[in-house]
């Protein structure tokens, strides 16, 4: 399992290959989040960010068959269309790969200490948290 919080870009192909080495792996599901519309700066809480993501990954591995997993989240200055986050999950079968990937993404949105600041022509402003993100994470409790 790999968790990386970094400024640098990442390569999907390299990351997927790295978690697909086992001959027992039958499925890899991946998700990439991109910057929409405006330039932004991402701040995070070094230390807590990594440990909170590890906790989410561990919980996913307890619920589904997760043979390997990589989560990469960028911080710093990002341009429109830049990749922000990658979640890739390798499982024996697709159902577990899809579910674990979505679960990790939903929890990351509400639990990992990142904050986005958008840079508009009129000035910079912090992005407000969305209730729909809390609801997305909450549905996994049912």
């Amino acid at each position, binding site marked *: 399992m790999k968790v990386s919080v970094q400024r640098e870009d990442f390569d999907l192909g390299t990351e997927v290959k790295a978690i697909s080495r086992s001959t027992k792996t039958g499925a890899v599901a991946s998700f990439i989040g991109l910057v929409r519309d405006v330039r932004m700066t991402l*701040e995070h*809480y070094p230390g807590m960010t990594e440990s909170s993501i590890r906790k989410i990954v561990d919980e996913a591995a307890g619920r589904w068959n997760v043979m390997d997993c990589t989560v990469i989240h960028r911080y710093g200055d990002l341009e429109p269309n830049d990749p922000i986050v990658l979640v890739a999950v390798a499982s024996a079968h697709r159902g577990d790969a899809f579910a674990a990937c979505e679960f990790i*993404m939903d929890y990351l*949105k*509400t*639990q990992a200490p990142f*904050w986005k600041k958008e840079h508009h022509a009129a000035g910079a402003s912090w992005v407000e*948290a969305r209730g729909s993100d809390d609801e997305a994470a909450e549905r996994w409790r049912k």
Partner: protein
Amino acid sequence: MKVRLLFFASLRESLGTAGEELDLPPTVTTVGSVREHLRSRGGAWADVFAPARNVRAAINQEMVQVGASIKAGDEIAFFPPVTGG
């Protein structure tokens, strides 16, 4: 009781500081009472920690609720709801 405070994102900007070492009076024993203690400083502190403001907290890098107990040497962080991903 000495603790380390950290502030992130909009809180850090509004308060003009990323954190401080603080010696708390013995009556301050929970995250909620730390918040009250900081609010009583007035000015930007009163605004940032006003009861209506949605402020999250972590002790030693674990998210906690307002009733969580604190102890000497803790790292206590305050921040707005997270917006990553």
